[in-house]
C-alpha cells in the first residue's frame, strides 16, 4: 500500500528506454575534451551553498561542480527549491551562505553566456509574434535600439549573420516547420523547442533549463531529452536541467543533484539515486528499483522532512538525524492510520509541501 502511494508521489514510471544511446553518450562523455578557454574553469561551482526565501532555508550544503559539456539534473519534490537553485545560478537571488561561481564569476555577471529556459512558460494564444522573432530576441533582444531586424541595405552583413545564427538554432532543435507561425498558435511542445532554440541562439556555455519536459507527451519528452543531450555533447554546452522525472534524461546524465528539505545530495546518478542515499537524504525509507529496461523507480515518499534547524554542511545531510529522530520514521512505518490517510489522498505530498507541519506532528497524531 505504501509502495503504491509513493510511486504515485515520485512518479518515475513513465520513461523511454534508450540504453544503447546511454552507453554511447557515456563513452562520448569520457573522451570529451573541453576546448573553451585555456585553463579549465568549472562552468558552475557551488561550495556549501544554501538558499533561503522569505527567511526560510530551502536547502543547504550543496556542493556541485559542473565541468563544461556536462549534463546535470536537479531533482526533488515540488516546492523544495529547484527553481530557487536556478535563480541562484542566474544571480537573480543571492545564495544565503556558501560560495557560488558561474563561469568563473559571481552569478549574474555572465548573462550573455548562459541560455535560460524558465519553468512553465506558455505564450498566450493571442500573442501575435512569430517563433523566429522570439528566438531572435534571445540573440539581441537586450540591445538598445529599434526592435526591427535591420531594414535592409544598412548593416546587411551583420543582419545576415544574425539571421543565419537564428536559422541555425531553429534547425538544431528541428523547429523550422513552425518557426514562422505566430508563437501563440504553436503547441506546447513546439513552443518548448522554440524556447530551447532561443536559449541556444547565443551559443551559450551553460544552459539552465527549468523543467523543459513539463507539458510534453512521452515521445516528445524522449526526443527533447535526446535533443538536449545531443546539443550538450556536440556544442560542448554544460546543461543544468531541473526535472521531475529522471528517466527520460537518465541516459545523458553526468551528474545529479537531489534536493530535499534542508539538505541535498550530489554525485553521479549511480551514486545518488540509490536506496541508501535517498533514504538518508529524505530521512524516511525510500527504495530505488531498477526495471529490467533500465528505468529507475523511486518508491517511498520523499516527504519534506520538517525540521529546519540543525543543518549539516556536508554534501549529504540527514544521516545522523535519522538516528536521533527515528521516531518519525518508525511512527510512520508502524502506523496504519497515517498511511491510510495518505493513500486516500494521492496528492498528500503536494499538500505537505505547501503546508508544512511541525516536526513529528503526524506521528503524534497517530498515537
Amino acid at each position: 500500500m505504501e509502495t503504491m502511494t509513493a510511486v504515485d508521489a515520485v512518479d518515475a514510471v513513465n520513461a523511454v528506454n534508450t540504453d544503447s544511446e546511454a552507453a554511447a553518450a557515456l563513452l562520448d562523455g569520457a573522451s570529451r575534451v573541453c576546448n573553451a578557454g585555456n585553463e579549465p574553469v568549472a562552468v558552475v561551482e557551488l561550495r556549501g551553498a544554501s538558499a533561503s526565501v522569505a527567511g526560510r532555508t530551502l536547502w543547504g550544503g550543496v556542493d556541485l561542480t559542473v565541468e563544461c559539456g556536462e549534463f546535470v539534473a536537479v531533482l526533488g519534490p515540488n516546492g523544495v527549491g529547484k527553481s530557487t537553485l536556478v535563480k541562484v545560478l542566474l544571480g537573480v537571488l543571492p545564495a544565503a551562505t556558501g560560495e557560488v561561481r558561474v563561469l568563473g564569476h559571481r552569478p549574474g555577471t555572465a548573462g550573455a553566456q548562459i541560455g535560460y529556459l524558465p519553468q512553465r512558460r506558455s505564450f498566450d494564444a493571442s500573442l501575435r509574434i512569430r517563433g523566429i522573432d522570439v528566438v531572435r530576441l534571445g540573440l539581441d533582444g537586450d540591445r538598445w535600439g529599434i526592435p526591427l531586424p535591420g531594414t535592409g541595405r544598412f548593416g546587411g552583413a551583420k543582419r545576415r549573420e544574425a539571421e543565419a545564427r537564428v536559422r541555425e538554432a531553429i534547425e538544431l532543435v528541428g523547429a523550422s516547420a513552425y518557426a514562422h507561425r505566430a508563437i501563440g498558435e504553436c503547441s506546447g511542445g513546439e513552443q518548448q523547442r522554440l524556447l530551447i532554440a532561443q536559449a541556444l541562439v547565443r551559443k551559450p556555455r551553460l544552459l539552465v533549463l527549468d523543467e523543459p519536459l513539463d507539458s510534453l507527451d512521452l515521445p516528445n519528452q524522449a526526443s527533447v531529452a535526446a535533443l538536449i543531450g545531443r546539443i550538450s555533447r556536440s556544442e560542448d554546452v554544460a546543461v543544468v536541467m531541473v526535472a521531475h522525472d529522471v528517466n527520460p534524461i537518465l541516459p545523458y546524465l553526468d551528474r545529479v543533484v537531489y534536493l530535499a528539505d534542508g539538505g541535498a545530495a550530489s554525485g553521479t546518478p549511480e551514486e545518488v539515486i540509490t536506496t541508501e542515499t535517498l533514504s538518508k537524504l529524505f530521512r524516511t525509507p525510500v527504495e530505488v528499483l531498477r526495471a529490467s529496461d533500465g528505468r529507475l523507480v523511486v518508491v517511498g515518499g520523499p516527504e519534506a522532512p520538517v525540521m529546519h534547524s540543525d543543518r549539516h554542511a556536508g554534501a549529504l545531510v540527514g544521516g545522523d538525524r535519522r538516528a536521533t529522530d527515528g521516531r518519525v520514521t518508525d511512527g510512520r512505518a508502524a502506523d496504519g492510520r497515517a498511511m491510510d490517510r495518505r493513500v486516500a489522498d494521492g496528492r498528500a505530498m503536494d499538500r505537505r509541501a505547501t503546508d508544512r507541519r511541525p516536526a513529528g506532528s503526524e506521528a503524534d497524531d497517530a498515537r
Partner: protein
Amino acid sequence: MPADSGLSWNLLSDIDQMWKLDSMVNAYRAGTIVAVLAAVVGWFVVLRRQTFVAHTVSLAGFPGAAAAVFLGVSASWGYFGFCIGAAAVIAALARSGKGGMAEESALTGIVQSFTLACGMLFVALYKGFLNGVNSLLFGSFLGVTPGDIAVLAVVAVVVLLAMALIGRPLLFASVDPAVADARGVPSRTLSLLFLVLLGATAAEVSQITGSLLVFALLVMPAATAQRITARPGRSLVLSVVFALAVTWFGLGAAYFSPYPIGFWITTFAFGCYLLANLYGFAARWRGAGRRQVAEALGVS
C-alpha cells in the same frame, strides 16, 4: 463643424475647398502627428495587453482638461498633466513582480473610477461648461492652433525617440520577461518608463479623438495590423498606415458631415478591424483547404 460644409457633386472641388481652411490644415497636421505616435505606442500596448491601463490613463485626460478649462489655462496642460500623472500613480503603486501590469487591474480600475469622479466634479464646478464636455469625451478637431501643433510635434518626437531607444529591450521584456530579466534587461524600469510614455501619448490622442475614444487610434490600428501579420516590423508599419488612413478619412468625413470626428475615426478603424478579421479567416480557410488537398494527394 462648419455649417456650410457638406458634399456637393464635385468631390475634388469640395476637398479643395476644405484645404483652403486653415483650421482644417491644422487639424490634418495635428491628426497626422497623433496618428503616427498612437500607432507606434499602441502597437506595444496591444502586444503587452495593457489596454485597460491605456484606457484608464486616457480617461484621466477628461478631468485634466476640465480642470484646465476651469482654471482658465490651455486644455493641453490638463491633458498632459493628468494623463502622465495617472500613469505615474499606476507605476508607483504597482507592485513589483512578474506578469507586468496584468495583475494590476484592480489598481487600474481604482484609478480609473477616481479620475472619472474628478472629471464630474470639475464639470459640476463649472456650470456653463456643458457644451465642452461632449468634445472632451468624443473629440473635436476645430480650434487647433499652430502652438498646439508645435507642442504635439515636440512631445511626439520625444516619445518616439524614447521608443526607438528602448524598443527592442521593451519588446523582449514584453514577450518574455523572465528570460529578459536573466539577460540583464531592466524590465521593471522599462515597463514604468513605458507607462509614462503611454501617458503622454494618451494625452495627445485625447485631444483629437476625445478621452473616451482614444482606443480608436491607440488600439484599433495596432490590433488590426497584428491580426494581419505576426511579423513585428511589418505589423508596426501597417499599424502606422492604418492609423494615418483612419485619421485622414475621419477628418474628411467629419468636415463634410454633422457628426463628430471621434465617431468617424472609430467607425473607420472598426471597419478595418472587421476586414482584417475576415482576411484572417479567409487565409486560414485557404490554408486549411490547401492542407486538405495536400493530404489527399499524399504529400505533406
